[in-house]
């Protein structure tokens, strides 16, 4: 269904990739850890190595949580748009098939937040 309008109603979307100065948006959520109230939004260059996010970005973002230090990354389960997905840490975001405004989440089996409350 289209918007009701008195004449042609066409305006550019506000968040196309060309507006982010060479970066693309990537959203990352950590399942069962709602101490962080929402998934995060990041502007990353598509050439960035996925492993650099794991090693260089996530500790600063999620490190406050006592579960973070216990993560076994080999066992982490990944999802992209809710579907199981396997990233390659040595490849770039683009090579991993990540596009502007993609959303990925990871689940860390055995870790269920503060006192098992999924916080």
């Amino acid at each position, binding site marked *: 269904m289209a918007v009701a309008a008195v004449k042609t109603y066409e305006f550019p979307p506000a968040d196309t990739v060309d507006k982010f100065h060479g970066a693309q948006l990537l959203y990352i959520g950590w399942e069962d850890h709602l101490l962080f109230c929402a998934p995060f939004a990041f502007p990353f260059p598509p050439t960035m190595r996925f492993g650099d996010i794991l090693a260089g970005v996530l500790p600063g973002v999620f490190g406050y949580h006592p579960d973070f230090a216990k993560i076994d990354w080999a066992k982490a389960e990944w999802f992209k748009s809710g579907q199981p997905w396997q990233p390659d840490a040595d490849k770039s975001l683009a090579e991993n098939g990540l596009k502007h405004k993609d*959303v990925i989440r990871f689940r860390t089996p055995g870790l269920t937040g503060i006192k098992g409350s999924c*916080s």
Partner: protein
Amino acid sequence: MDMQVAKKKLGLKERYAVMTRGLDWKPSYQKMEDIYPYMAYEGIKIHDWDKWEDPFRLTMDAYWKYQAEKERKLYAIIDAFNQNNGHLNVTDARYLNTVKLFISGISPLEYVAHRGFSHVGRQFPGPGPRVACLMQALDEIRHAQTQVHSISNYNKYYNGMHDFHHAHDRVWFLSVPKSFFDDAITAGPFEFMVSIGFSFEYVLTNLLFVPFVSGAAYNGDMGTMTFGFSAQSDEARHMTLGLEVIKFILQQDPANVPIVQRWIDKWTWRGYRVLTLVAMMMDYMLPKRTMSWKEAWEVYFEENGGALFKDLARYGIKMPDCAAQIALEKDHLSHQAWSTFYNYAAASNFHTWMPDEEEMAWLSSKYPNSYDKYYRPRMEFWREEAAKGNRFYNKTLPMLCQTCQIPMIFTEPGDPTKICYREVDYKGDKYHFCSDHCKKIFEDEPEKYVQAWLPVHQIYQGNCFPEGTDPTVEGFDPLAAVLKYYNLEFGRDNLDFDISEDKKNFAEWRGQATKNV
């Protein structure tokens, strides 16, 4: 000597007829559709504007008289409150944050409502609704003004309120109420009336004004309370107008029913999402609580709203589908919202804190199905960490919902442990939503919502720094630059209540007022 003949006075009914409908005329050399160009495009069909029943027979001269009388009383009380340092009589300084939320989140909406009603008051061909909209437009600007006046006294003493309108147009979470109203005033005249006149003013207003005004009364804020009373008779009039509009549109043509139903569904959900702010205010920000959010929802929406929609069934209107999801969220909404503001206390124009033991007990008793299981562990952890000097400040920007613009904090209906993710591909780009309802609103009019000014994306595009900022210099601190753009001072307007200047000053001033120093 000539006899003085008393001028014949008009009766109330005649006077009303002369001063409202009598002011209208039929155009002779212009076409109606040129004078009222926005009447057809929304698909609403009106066959006879004279069928409009004025719910209140008020003429402009009587309107001025009533309002002037109310203003005189209001300003006398505000003056007395100010002259007697009434601000020191509030329950405790945490209450001031409710006032900050109100002045930056709600009062600017009154002004936009004024603009909206002025606009539709010009557009309707019927003189009855035109006059009613004119009065409501004046009410709304009066409310904006009296709220600013009532609250300005607090601004002399406390932080975060100094540039509320600037904040309203910029601060990340204020884009939620702002975009809600922007959505309404950019819709056509009929949708505006259904969105604001009916869904907001009629269905949801009790959940906005009653909590703030009774919250003010319970917490010793006579200024805000008096404003509330002064607005009350206006609100009653607005509710009546909202209901009349709906009934009028529905009775005019059966083809109007599905259009109106879609608008009611949309705006009940949009309004409810904005009320997230009220939910957390009721459960966390008022030092003396009036009732819980859940109780308020049950009384004002489930009971009163339920009766309303039963009444509207005869016009073919049913309860919005979203009510089922809202019922599932009522055990969680305020806790998820307050957790969010606790997360982002460094980027807000008011302070946050963790509830104390007694307040947690209150939350457990009001939310027996959810608080202890899902939220208490999180909040106790935060409280313990803060006591150790490790207060949690989340400094990474969150993902937002494209429609309501709230961070993606809401959980799956029925599973409070999982964030609810929804997405849509539209013309080569992805769009994300907090719920099925926000997703549907987008899908109905994607052309509108792809333009959304999402604060997080705007920051990453570099549009939320003061002019001349170079984000590429070594050691650039984006939060500091964004706060400057918000005109908020780090360490003064933001962060935890416990370390705030407000807390310190209030204690000192109240001490001076109540003790011999």
